[in-house]
């Protein structure tokens, strides 16, 4: 069964390390990550690709991964990747930090994006 988007939203808002996405949801997030993985690694210590490694990105300060040459637009945007900001970023990066470098067109639904964020959190919890 699928979680209702609203429920996922609530879960995300109140998320603690104890709340883990269901296997089906994590599969959905893993599928959504197919659109990201050419540019982004997600395992700890994996080198940056064209985009920065996203290990631990949820909740972190923007432009904080070590050793990645971020655009000025993102570096100076004063953003923390809380889930709402991440959601808006994935829908349209240019609306969050105009002039940033992420050359990307979103094709993910709101539910996909929620699953993607859950996936990013779950892989960041592991090694």
């Amino acid at each position, binding site marked *: 069964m699928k979680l209702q988007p609203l429920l996922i939203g609530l879960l995300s808002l109140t998320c603690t390390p104890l709340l883990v996405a269901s296997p089906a949801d994590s599969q959905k997030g893993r599928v959504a990550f197919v659109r990201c993985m*050419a540019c982004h690694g997600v395992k700890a210590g994996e080198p940056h690709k064209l985009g920065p490694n996203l290990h631990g990105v949820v909740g972190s300060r923007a432009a904080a991964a070590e050793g990645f040459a971020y655009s000025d637009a993102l570096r100076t945007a004063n953003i923390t990747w809380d889930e709402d900001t991440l959601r808006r970023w994935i829908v349209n990066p240019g609306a969050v930090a105009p002039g940033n*470098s992420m050359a990307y067109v979103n094709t993910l639904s709101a539910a996909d994006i929620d699953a993607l964020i859950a996936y990013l959190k779950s892989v960041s919890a592991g090694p």
Partner: protein
Amino acid sequence: MPTLNRRRLLLGAAAVAAASAAPARAAMKQPDVIVLGAGLAGLNAALLLEQFGLNVRVLEASQRIGGRLCTLDDLAGHPEAGGTQIGAAYARIVDTAKRLGVAMQPNERSPLLNDRNLVFHVNGQRRTAEQWASAADNPLPAAVRAMTPDGALLRLIGASPLSSIGAWRDSANFKYDVSAVETLTAHGVNTEAMKLIDATNSYGDTLSETSLLNLYYVQTNLREISRFPGPVMGVAGGNQRLPEAMARALHGDVLRGRVVTHVKAEGRSTSVRCADGSKYKASFVVCALPLPAMRNVRFEPGLPALHADAVRQLAYARVTQLHLEVKRPFWEDEGVSPFLWSNGPLERIFPNDPTGSGKADSLVVWINGAGTASWDAMPEADLQARVDEELARIYPSSRGAVRVGRRITWHASPLAGGAWANWLPGQIERFSHVIGQPHGSVHFAGEHTAQALRGMEGAMESGERAASEILAHQ
């Protein structure tokens, strides 16, 4: 609509992860997915689907892997007949090459390809780049007089108003999906200048058939890509080595010589029939054929009317190349470069010098659009004499210095039908949202269905999208 069994997907993914060191060739019953076309788009879709544990079979019409990546291995210098330059921002290509252990190497800047050394042969007269910039018969506006007319085109339309790499498909920008002529006229480009631009126009046979929005799409791609500095690259040993490595990395079969003629929905499966009588079935199909090849495939049920119109009508660029092997570097005798722009029959010549040595084993004569017709019609036996004659008009010392190694005519190949999709005025508005729409269990890929990037990276992007669509059916 078939669905993929979630448990199977999860198990499959785990199994693939566990067995990735020595993957066993999957016993092929009915595969989950049949991919049509072993170019970058189809192969990227196939690889991604296998990463999620699906059984995939690839059908390729020719005997060669790679589609419009095509390295001429039997010619001196191994020139590329297809996709040539890989930008630093081509994330999917770079990542796939790295993952498969395919070496990439920077294309060093060749002094032969320095713009300042470019030879202009215009209206039958040879000039240096400097001479051409101030020539009385140079009709280009002052700001771009030193540029090649085709290079000047992207400058002359002004800065792209597209805010992002995907904005070319936004309805707000469809007002630009008109011929480029009016905007060029407004920017002070006269008819003579437009004629020169048309001599080597890559985006339409003539400017009246060139969509301003398509030019902005190109320009926006260049702008966004330039944010990622880095050398232009090629695959070590030739770009075709990448799709070959992708095909080898697949667990499923890549069957060659399978010219697909029918794609038919049959209950929960889709069947694919080939000209050799072979027939295959799967839950899903990824059709990664260029449209001219797809025109020979019958879909049952038929594609929706607008999608069918798109398949029939989307234009493809006509490109003919004459690959010349250099027996003697004739240009050295004349103290010039073989790098040429002309409005005569040879149009453009690019020396092949990926190591930046200043020497070239081969040259490619690159002919676009209307200029291709006379070269295409020429009997093979006459080709050498005609090339010698035309080349000698420009470089008098070139007689006997080159051998025509190969004539490539992309638009005459029934499997390609052109070099790349060229959106004519009005076609982006009509077709860009329908061209990649799934049809039942058939999903579409290929550079013509890319939504953000273009060329090789656009092909990879489209394969990724098609795979994602199928994986979402869990």
